[in-house]
């Protein structure tokens, strides 16, 4: 069933997003992972940016575009909005390490897993394309597309991976 929203798009156009329709991608996936999508899911895949490198966004979007999909990019702080509106169908989450207690995944994975847990949305796990360091350099947050984003003298903390306990998976 389509849920008509009263959201305002740009210059007051209304949009329609189907309830429980969005497939949300978090992390960096192997190339073969992208072959698993059905043609009917062409318009439904939303990709999280994956600060600081945006590698998650770049890899996922390029692979989906190659396969004729039309991915939609959202910033890492926008996932909650989709959950709040009950728009998320399922999550595909990449992991670096998996054991009986949980997974190690790209930073942001815990946010998505807690949101999924709270909203009753299923998570599918896939091995990651690459193993990231635990923590990145502060400078990675100080620039975006080559432009400086912060005044001098600011510190940054840049975790790149985080642990997601089984409770949320």
């Amino acid at each position, binding site marked *: 069933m389509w849920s008509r929203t*009263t*959201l*305002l*798009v*740009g210059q007051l156009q209304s*949009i329609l997003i189907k309830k429980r329709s969005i497939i949300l991608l978090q992390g960096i996936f192997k190339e073969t992972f992208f072959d698993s999508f059905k043609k009917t899911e062409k318009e439904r895949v*939303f*990709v*999280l*940016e*994956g*600060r*600081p490198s*945006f590698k998650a*966004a*770049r890899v996922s*979007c*390029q692979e989906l*575009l190659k396969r004729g999909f*039309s*991915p*939609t*990019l*959202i*910033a*890492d*702080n*926008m*996932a*909650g*909005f989709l*959950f*709040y509106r009950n728009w998320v169908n399922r999550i595909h989450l990449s992991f670096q390490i998996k054991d009986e207690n949980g997974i190690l995944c790209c*930073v*942001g994975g*815990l*946010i998505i897993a*807690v*949101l999924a847990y*709270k909203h009753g949305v299923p998570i599918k796990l896939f091995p990651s394309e690459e193993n990231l360091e635990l923590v990145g350099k502060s400078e990675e*947050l*100080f620039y*975006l*597309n*080559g*432009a*400086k*984003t*912060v*005044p001098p*003298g*600011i*510190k*940054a*903390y*840049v*975790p790149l991976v*985080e*642990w997601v306990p089984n409770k949320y998976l």
Partner: protein
Amino acid sequence: MKIKESPLFWPAKLKGNILFVLDETLLPERFKYIQVKNTKEAVDVIVGMKTRAFGQFLVVLNTFLLELGNGKNLLKRIETTAQALNNSRPTFPFAEVTSIVVGWAKQAQEKKMDVKSFVKKNILGYLRGIRMRRLGRVKHLAELIKDGDSILTHCNVSGELAMAAYLCRQQKKDVHFFATETRPFLQGAKLTCWELKRMGADVTLIADNAVASVMVDGLVNKVIVGSDRSCANGDFANKIGTYQIAVLAKEFRIPFYVLTQPSSKIQRGEDIPIEIRDEEELLVYSGKRIVEGQVKGFYPGFDVVPYNLIGGSIAININ
């Protein structure tokens, strides 16, 4: 104790017939005020997000002061100004503010008083009152912040958190702040880090996706955010990203505080119109695309946070 004021606390000032509005999109590199002379220019600075949050409130009230000097049929002019401002952006409660001014104009006309002087006097008195209440809230916020606290904040709280940080320093409290970047405009990196640093506060920038990490690792013990709109049931709207922070704070048992301006005009969060901004604002930064190719973007400007996720509200009355 005198409070050092952040430029973001009162980012629009009327001098003569010109309203000077701090261009927050240029910070921290450039400190520049945009000159606003009429309603159209006021709407432009609001729509272009040159100012936001409390700055919008100041622009609205000062725009009426600008228009009071322009010709006859003041009630009609005030109503036209109110309509233009109400239509500028959907989520901030412009109509709640402009209706107060329209009400004063109607009252003056009905009682055969001078509309211009009555409305002007009321707006200036109203602004003075709001200023005093916000300064009071800064002091309240400083009392809430304890020695040893590590506080996570999101987007920007229009000067109040930074000024509270200044008070805490004067009170010899050792306080640390984490500021989220707040994509896509990076208000956390550009504004919050900047103003906290100006106040001598200890601030660390994190990406929006690092919020759960700092919580689960025990690096923060309070969350403090602002709000753009409040509902009768206690729900509120704030910058996109606030909802997931509130969910995580609840999950990891970290007190979540919000600075609100209570209103009974709208019943619950679901009724707040949410602005969806142009996807290009998300897809392009500094003239370059984030990802190549025909990728779509989705940029909701605000989240709604249900009242049951809020640990405490620090409210001021603006009506």
